[in-house]
C-alpha cells in the first residue's frame, strides 16, 4: 500500500515538475526566479529594508486601480468631472477603487521618500550602487510628475487652478520655461488638449517609463546585492577587483594594459 502511495506521489510530482522543467529548459526562468528568491542577503537586514518593496507594492496598486479607473474615466472637459462623479457615486465599489488610487498616490510618494531616506542614512548609495541612486532619483521625479498630471484629471476647480499654477511655475523656468509651459498645455492656454495630454502622460508615457526604470532598479539591486546596516558586525565592501577594469576590460571598449593603465584601442 505504501508502495502504491509513493508511486502515485511520484506521478503527481512528475505532473507538477514536468511543465516547470519544460519552461526551465526553454527559458531558464525557473532558475532565474530561484536565484532571485534564494539569493544571499546580509543576516542583519531589518524592516527598514522592506521600504523599497513597499514602494513597489504601492506602485502596483496604482497600476491596477488606474487601469480599472481608465475603463470609466472620460478625458474631455465636458465629461471628465461627470465621469469622476459617476465612478465615485454610481459604479459599484467605484468609491473604493478611486479612493485607493487617490490616497495610494500619496502613499507611493511618501514611501519613495522614506525609501530614499533609508538608502541615504544606511550609506547604501555608495560604490558600487551610485547608478541605482541616480535611477531612484529619476523614479522620484517621474513619480512626482505622475502626481502632477493625475491631479488635473478630476477637472474640478482645485484640479484646474492647481494645474494652472503648476504649469505656470514651469513657465517661469529660465530660457525654455515658456516653451515647457506651452508644451504641457498643448497650446497657448489650458483647454481640451491639455486634459487629453495630461491623461496620456499620466496613464501611458510616465507609467511606461517608471516600469522600465523599476526593472533596471531591481536588476541592479539583485546584481549588486543588499547592503547591511551601518551598525552591522559583518564586514562590508569586499573585494573591489570584480569591478576593476583590468579584469573585464571596461565593457570591452578599451583594452586594459598594465595595472592602473588603460590603453585606448
Amino acid at each position, binding site marked *: 500500500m505504501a508502495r502504491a502511495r509513493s508511486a502515485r506521489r511520484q506521478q503527481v510530482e512528475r505532473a507538477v515538475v514536468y511543465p516547470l522543467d519544460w519552461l526551465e529548459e526553454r527559458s531558464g526562468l525557473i532558475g532565474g526566479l530561484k536565484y532571485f528568491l534564494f539569493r544571499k542577503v546580509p543576516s542583519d537586514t531589518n524592516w527598514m529594508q522592506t521600504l523599497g518593496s513597499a514602494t513597489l507594492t504601492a506602485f502596483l496598486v496604482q497600476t491596477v486601480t488606474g487601469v480599472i479607473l481608465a475603463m470609466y474615466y472620460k478625458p474631455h*472637459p465636458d465629461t471628465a468631472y461627470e465621469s469622476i462623479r459617476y465612478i465615485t457615486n454610481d459604479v459599484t465599489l467605484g468609491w473604493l477603487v478611486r479612493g485607493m488610487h487617490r490616497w495610494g498616490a500619496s502613499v507611493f510618494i511618501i514611501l519613495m521618500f522614506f525609501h530614499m531616506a533609508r538608502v541615504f542614512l544606511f550609506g547604501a548609495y555608495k560604490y558600487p550602487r551610485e547608478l541605482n541612486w541616480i535611477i531612484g532619483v529619476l523614479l522620484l521625479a517621474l513619480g512626482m510628475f505622475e502626481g502632477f498630471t493625475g491631479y488635473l484629471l478630476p477637472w474640478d476647480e482645485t484640479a484646474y487652478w492647481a494645474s494652472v*499654477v503648476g*504649469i*505656470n511655475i514651469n513657465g517661469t523656468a529660465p*530660457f525654455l520655461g515658456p516653451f515647457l509651459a506651452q*508644451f504641457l*498645455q*498643448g497650446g*497657448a492656454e489650458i483647454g481640451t488638449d491639455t486634459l487629453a495630454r495630461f491623461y496620456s502622460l499620466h496613464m501611458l508615457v510616465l507609467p511606461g517609463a517608471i516600469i522600465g526604470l523599476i526593472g533596471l532598479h531591481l536588476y541592479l539591486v539583485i546584481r549588486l546585492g543588499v547592503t547591511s546596516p551601518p551598525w552591522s558586525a559583518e564586514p562590508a565592501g569586499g573585494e573591489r577587483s570584480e569591478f576593476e577594469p583590468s579584469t573585464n576590460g571596461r565593457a570591452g571598449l578599451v583594452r586594459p594594459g598594465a595595472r592602473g593603465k588603460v590603453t585606448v584601442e
Partner: protein
Amino acid sequence: MDPHGGEQRAHAPAPTLWPVGFAVGIAVLLTGLIVGWYIVILGAVLTVAFGFLWIRDVTAEMRGPVDTVEPERRPARRPAPAPGEDETETERYPRNVFLEGATLGIGGLIGGLVTLPVLGFAVLPAFTGEDVEELDVGALDDFPDGQWLVVTFLKDPEQGEVSRRTAYVRNNGLLEGAPSFTIVSNRCVHLGCPVQPNGPVNDDEAKEEKTDSTTVSRIPTNPAGFGCPCHGGQYDNEGNRTAGPPVRSLDRFDYSIRNGRLLLRETYSVGEVRGEGKEAVIVKYGQATPGVHVDGPEQLLYPVQAPK
C-alpha cells in the same frame, strides 16, 4: 508494418477492457433518449471517451513507439581558426565591422524616420495655429462712462466652457474724439490664477448677450483694485502691482471698435502703466507667460517667447 506481406500469422490485438465502457456509454445514451437530455450528454461523453481509449489501444502497435526528439545538432562547418592564426584575417576588410555599422546605421535611420514625425506631432501643435479672432462683447452703449464691468465670454465657443475668459472693462470716455477703453485681463501675472475685483460685484444687474462671435455676460462692479485669491497678489485699477508676488502689471486686451461694437483682440503684456484712464501711458510687450519678467534685468532670462 507491411500490409501485403511479412507476417503470415493471424494478428490479434492485445486484450482490452475499454469496449465494456464503450458499450455502457451507448446503453446510457439510449436510456437518455427516454429519461432526459442530460443523460444523453453523459452517455455521449462516456461513449466518446471509452471509444477514444479503445481506438488508442487497438492502434498502439500501428503507431509504434513514440520517437524521442533530440535537439538539432550539427558540427561547425569549418573549424574556427586557433588564436594567433588569424593574423592574416585582420588584414582584410573586416566584414563584421561593416555589418555592425550597417545594422546600427539602418536601424537608426528607421528609428529616426518613425520617431521624428511622431515627436513633431506631439510637440508642434502646441506652438502653432493660435488664431486671433475678434470677439464682440457688446455695443458701446452697454459700457457707461467710468463704470467697470466684469465681462466674461467664450474665447472659442466651439471648445465650450473651458475657453471662458474674463476681462475687466472700463469705458474711459472720448480721447481725441475716439472712444477709449481700459480692458484688463483677469489672469494674474504671478501664476495665472483669476484676479477678483476688490469691491462689490452687482450680480443683480448682470446682462447676458449672444453676439455674432461669442456669448458674453457683463456685470457692473466698483473695484478698489484687483486681488488674486491664490497667493495674495494685489493690483490697482490700472493693473499695476501694489503688493504680493506678481512680476509685472496685469495683461490687457487689444481692442477695436466697429459699427458701434466693442471687439476684443489678443492680449498683450504690460511692464507698467503710468497715469490713469484715457491718459494712461502703457508700456507694452508681447504676450508673455505669467510669472515671466518683461522688463528689468530679469527679462534676460526669457530671451524668446514661445510662438503661439
